[in-house]
């Protein structure tokens, strides 16, 4: 295989695999094929990251047309890292899907499910890889349309209503992005992100650029599910099949955060976004509210998937908060948290899938006594939960460390206090889970429950072991994130 074509293969492989997968009628074949594809993607993304860290930015010309006229795939430390996160999550979640999907999706056509899943993967990888503004819109719609279908496949009828709600909001967000891209094209005559970043500064009349900035930011914030544009998220994550919740929670919002970083820093530039436009004044209060309200609402949930969906809204707040500092440590914290939260929340939703598989419920009351009966699943859930709190030795601690540091650097000690307060609130909802799992006796007459099958436990533990590993060995994730942060801020690497 010619390594020079890796950037496009990364996107083309799942795109071609999706229709092929539909041809495989036996669910086991479709699953095995999808697993192979996801492992191949992981291998490619590791190769790409190694090359980018060694040689710097890779620019790939689609069809040999030179940028800015042709479409360019531009890979640097930031998007290689995002691609690695997505493909790593996919490579772990796909093996898990076989049993979980067989149990939770009643429709007989599992090959269609895997086909749509591969399309979602294509879209997410495409957003991360491309260096073309319109391409971002198209890939965003590919991944979104596929995720509406995946969410709608949930067993409860509320899954369909949640998918419809997400479709409406997601389409409004994507169309806002399209308006913004149109305004940018009108003023600059280019769609290439690198070219745009040079020309935006030269535009004589800035008013359409301001409008473009506003449309793009709002559109992306809907995808990112930042408070108050988050209302699609809790229903979608609660009612989607468990494996889909895990995959989307770990990848879709992370890609939203990446797109925000790309537009705010690479395209408009930090000077425009934070000095001429009040991005910090908007983003910072919203993220702090997201942290406190998201975590606060999570305390009162009885459905565990909904509980952790609200906790996701809080965690997205931390990512957006890191972006709003526009400093090296803030961005490092945000990028590291993209990775860490993907591992933790992916692991948590996989553990909930194990619980769903054995007990048929993810209600808090169904947890009673499970600490003894499903020890590995519950331990995984607790480790993930402690990571969300940010206990030292978990990777959640690393990201919060950088965020607090960024707040202190910016002389915003109330923000640092609020970050810590958010952790305390998270401790309450994680505490409720621990209490229910370990300190409550099983209800009398409860059916005997066995530990989840190892094919599901291993993927769950891989994600959470990764979150523990990168909580102690921080140098790998932090060095990539720091390099990405410096590049986004335009500092010499």
């Amino acid at each position, binding site marked *: 295989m010619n390594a020079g074509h890796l950037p496009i293969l990364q996107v083309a492989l799942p795109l071609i695999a999706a229709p092929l997968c539909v041809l495989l009628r036996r669910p086991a074949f479709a699953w095995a094929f999808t697993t192979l594809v996801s492992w191949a993607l992981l291998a490619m993304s590791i190769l790409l990251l190694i090359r980018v860290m060694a040689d710097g930015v890779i620019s790939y010309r689609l069809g040999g047309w030179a940028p800015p006229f042709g479409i360019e795939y531009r890979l640097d430390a930031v998007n290689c890292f995002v691609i690695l996160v997505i493909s790593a999550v996919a490579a772990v979640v796909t093996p898990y899907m076989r049993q979980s999907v067989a149990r939770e999706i009643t429709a007989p056509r599992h090959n269609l499910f895997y086909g749509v899943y591969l399309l979602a993967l294509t879209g997410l990888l495409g957003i991360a890889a491309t260096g073309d503004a319109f391409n971002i819109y198209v890939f965003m*719609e590919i991944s979104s349309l596929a995720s509406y279908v995946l969410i709608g496949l949930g067993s409860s009828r509320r899954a369909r209503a949640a998918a419809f709600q997400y479709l409406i909001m997601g389409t409004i967000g994507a169309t806002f992005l399209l308006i913004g891209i149109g305004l940018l094209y009108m003023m600059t005559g280019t769609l290439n992100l690198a070219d745009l970043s040079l020309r935006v500064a030269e535009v004589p009349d800035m008013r359409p650029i301001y409008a473009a900035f506003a449309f793009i930011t709002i559109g992306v914030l809907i995808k990112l599910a930042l408070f108050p544009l988050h209302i699609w998220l809790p229903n979608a994550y609660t009612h989607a099949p468990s494996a889909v919740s895990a995959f989307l929670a770990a990848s879709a919002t992370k890609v939203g955060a990446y797109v925000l970083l790309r537009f705010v820093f690479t395209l408009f530039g930090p000077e425009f976004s934070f000095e001429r436009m009040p991005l910090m004044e908007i983003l910072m209060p919203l993220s702090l509210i997201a942290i406190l309200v998201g975590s606060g609402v999570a305390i009162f949930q009885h459905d565990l998937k909904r509980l952790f969906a609200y906790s996701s809204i809080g965690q997205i707040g931390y990512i957006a908060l890191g972006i709003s500092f526009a400093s090296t440590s803030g961005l490092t914290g945000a990028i590291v948290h993209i990775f860490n939260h993907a591992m933790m929340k992916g692991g948590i939703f996989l553990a909930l899938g194990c619980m769903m598989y054995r007990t048929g419920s993810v209600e808090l009351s169904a947890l009673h006594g499970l600490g003894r009966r499903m020890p590995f699943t519950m331990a995984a859930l607790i480790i993930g939960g402690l990571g969300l709190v940010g206990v030292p030795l978990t990777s959640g601690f690393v990201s919060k460390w950088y965020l607090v540091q960024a707040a202190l650097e910016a002389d915003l000690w109330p923000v640092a206090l609020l970050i810590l307060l958010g952790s305390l609130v998270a401790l309450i909802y994680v505490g409720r889970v621990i209490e229910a799992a370990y300190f409550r006796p099983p209800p009398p007459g409860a059916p005997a429950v066995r530990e989840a099958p190892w094919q599901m436990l291993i993927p769950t533990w891989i994600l959470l072991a990764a979150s523990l590993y990168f909580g102690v060995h921080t140098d790998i994730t932090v060095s990539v994130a720091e390099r990405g942060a410096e590049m986004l801020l335009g500092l010499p690497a």
Partner: protein
Amino acid sequence: MDILTHFNYWAAIALATIGLYAVVARHNLIKKLIGLSLFQTAVFLLFITIGKVTGGTAPILDAAYSLYSNPLPHVLILTAIVVSVSTLAVGLALAIAIKRDYGTVEEDEIHDADSAAGTGGEE
């Protein structure tokens, strides 16, 4: 003044606002989808307007024409139309599934049915 010379832009803004209003204000899922399509189509109009060059022809490679409209927005919008049609298709498919499961496509009735079922509902 501006309204006449920039008629297309005003039309796009008006259509987008009407579409967005329908999405927010209507409770019928099908009407919401109609509003969404209207909103997207208004953006297509905006793009096509951007590409228009006054006095230009269609972009045909011929010695007789030298002034022609910018074809790139047209190409972009062809793609965006495909996206919009797919969105509408998925949306309608979901509406059919909702009608099958709930027996209604009215949003408030769906909410009522959910809170009546009481399966961990909020809102």
